[in-house]
């Protein structure tokens, strides 16, 4: 069975959706096939929402990677000297990881685009921040970001489309601690893509009213628009091979789970928007006589430079909580970019944000456990906890890489290894200690006694680098136009192309890149 389309998009997350949106904006009759390996998760479903409120379960948990060592279902393997965690870091379903994301929508800063030049580590982008700024602005508008333009950050051509959420009472106290510290830092408001209709339900893992931006909701609006007769979406359709002839892609081969058939689809161009891991895996798996080690991999670059930022969590406690405070949002509104600066870049930047879960009083849990009113009041007004977290930037290294493992995992996707080893663990530990001192200091400033510090393992949430952009094919996989080096009709548009992970969440940057790619394709510039 064969099919033909102008554009084949692999994946259905935010990148796929925004590229498709731009193509259809220019030409509503554009012929596009979107192929998603996972299934549709029901969005804005009352039962799913009640399951989260009552039992803390989500409908997408089954799509998470199985990375339990020794499990017969293990599909993701960590092989370096530093454990790499996969579980709960991405959603493999229609809508991709926007089905579980927190909506944090931060821009990279100017210096992040010149990481190699400024630090001697990692890589430079093939273009600078100024090139991406208009696309950041458009992305913020399209996904509805609320923020405060007066906060620290890169230069902006305009205000945020929506105002920020106010700090909670607890966050207001920590903001004061930032300002009163011996080396003061500036509090800022977390830019969040969920403001327009947000009813602050506190259940951001599964929004019952579709106010947090979700690629599924956006793509559904495109697919079910009768003015888009040639847009087709197929779920449960993992792509296993990109078909190329010399330096042109001419289609893909995918599995139709409903019929068990392998289907070949031809297209004028192929855009791989399959997330960092799957984008690299698909290029590696697409071997041929001309590309024996995978498409775009002549210089053995696909999968290399895997990197993310580590999360550090610091918690403190006070003896009493007389104001009876508990965290009323399920997302942080307080953050600071005062250590996400050019001066800090050489040592590794860090981005500070409030622990969204603290202080915590779970009245329902205490009631279920049989506590009476007096006991609950005592607990609620007793010990009070607060926490600060930081993402700490790491630099990519060529030896850290993603490779294919034998066999397949869920959804027919290839299993993988991620080899991640720190070349200078002691240096990185010193950076963690510096960040820890600062976070503990801010909490101490307002009377919290330090109780716990946890540097978490690197995780897959913000993985980047594995098909990184660059000007030369011997150190990168894609160009600044997001074409795979040597091709003019094969693109990668996922976090895989980001040359570095910086210190902040990458989704807004990916959204900006996607809008830039989609607009330029629609205009015939590429």
């Amino acid at each position, binding site marked *: 069975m064969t099919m033909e389309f102008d554009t084949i998009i692999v994946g259905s997350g935010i990148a796929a959706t925004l590229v498709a949106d731009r193509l259809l904006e220019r030409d509503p009759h554009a012929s596009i096939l979107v192929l998603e390996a996972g299934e549709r998760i029901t969005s804005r479903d009352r039962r799913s929402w009640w399951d989260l409120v009552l039992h803390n379960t989500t409908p997408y948990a089954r799509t998470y990677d199985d990375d339990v060592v020794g499990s017969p279902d293990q599909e993701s393997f960590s092989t370096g000297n530093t454990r790499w965690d996969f579980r709960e870091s991405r959603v493999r379903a229609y809508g991709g990881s926007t089905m579980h994301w927190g909506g944090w929508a931060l821009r990279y800063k100017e210096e992040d685009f010149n990481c190699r030049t400024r630090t001697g580590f990692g890589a430079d982008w093939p273009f600078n921040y100024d090139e991406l700024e208009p696309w950041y602005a458009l992305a913020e508008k399209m996904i509805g970001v609320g923020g405060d333009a007066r906060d620290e950050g890169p230069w902006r051509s305009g205000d945020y489309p929506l105002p920020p959420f106010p700090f*909670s*009472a607890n966050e207001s106290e920590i903001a004061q601690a930032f300002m009163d510290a011996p080396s003061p830092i500036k509090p800022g408001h977390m830019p969040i893509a969920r403001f327009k209709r947000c009813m*602050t339900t506190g259940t951001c893992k599964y929004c019952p009213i579709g106010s947090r931006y979700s690629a599924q909701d956006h793509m559904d609006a495109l697919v079910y628009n009768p003015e888009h007769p040639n847009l087709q979406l197929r779920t449960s359709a993992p792509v296993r091979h990109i078909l190329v002839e010399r330096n042109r892609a001419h289609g893909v081969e995918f599995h139709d789970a409903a019929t068990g058939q392998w289907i070949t689809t031809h297209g004028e161009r192929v855009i791989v928007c399959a997330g960092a891991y799957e984008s690299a895996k698909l290029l590696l798996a697409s071997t041929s006589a001309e590309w024996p080690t995978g498409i775009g991999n002549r210089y053995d670059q696909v999968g290399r430079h895997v990197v993310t930022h580590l999360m550090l969590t610091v918690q403190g406690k006070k003896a009493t909580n007389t104001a009876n405070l508990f965290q009323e*949002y399920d997302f942080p509104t307080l953050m600071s970019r005062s250590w996400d600066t050019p001066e800090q870049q050489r040592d590794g930047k860090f981005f500070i944000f409030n622990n969204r879960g603290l202080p915590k009083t779970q009245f329902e849990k205490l009631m*279920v456990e049989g506590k009476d009113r007096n006991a609950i009041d005592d607990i609620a007004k007793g010990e009070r906890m607060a926490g600060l977290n930081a993402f700490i930037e790491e630099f990519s290294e060529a030896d850290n890489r993603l490779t294919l493992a034998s066999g397949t995992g869920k959804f027919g996707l290839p299993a993988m290894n991620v080899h991640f080893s720190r070349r200078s663990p002691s240096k990185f530990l010193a950076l963690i200690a510096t960040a820890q001192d600062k976070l503990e200091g801010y909490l101490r400033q307002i009377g919290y006694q330090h109780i716990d510090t946890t540097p978490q393992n690197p995780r897959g949430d913000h993985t980047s680098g594995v098909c990184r952009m660059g000007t030369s094919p011997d150190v990168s996989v894609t160009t600044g136009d997001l074409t795979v080096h040597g091709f003019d009709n094969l693109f990668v548009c996922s976090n895989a192309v980001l040359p570095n992970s910086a210190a902040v969440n990458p989704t807004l940057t990916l959204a900006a890149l996607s809008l830039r790619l989609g607009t330029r394709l629609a205009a015939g510039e590429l």
Partner: protein
Amino acid sequence: MPEPVMWDEAIDPKMIVPSGDALTEWQMATLWAMFVAIPPHWKLDFPINLLHSRWLDMIEAQSAGNSDYRGEYANAASVYDAMVKALGENEAIELLYGKTIVTKPEDAKTRLGHAKYFVVNDFIRCFVATGGFRGFVPKARNYTGFMGGSRFREWAPVRTGVHK
């Protein structure tokens, strides 16, 4: 030997398979009577009737799909009714909300255990999330699961401090 009471009857910890019938008016009224007992049991001054539509939404959402709670709801209504008849309302409520604690599914080994684990615990969570948290902290504005946050920014959805 005293006659064994029905709520102590041993049953499999697995969720009770529902008959497929809709809950009766009597069952719904009995379940609601259990729910409205929450504020007085915890000495909370809270107008629980305001939560009726949210409670109904929960019952309806849980009464379908793969984990259909109707079998558990029917059991809980029968258990509560039997306890009220045998012990009186106050003691029945005390047994449901105070003396019986079941926090793991494998411990739901009796009819009362099922009522507690599958129904009463959910009622408590529903009560707190839909507004009952204000019974404990009247000044609080928001809580996980609370659908009351305003779309209008003139009214902060949470308690705020000096810095906004």
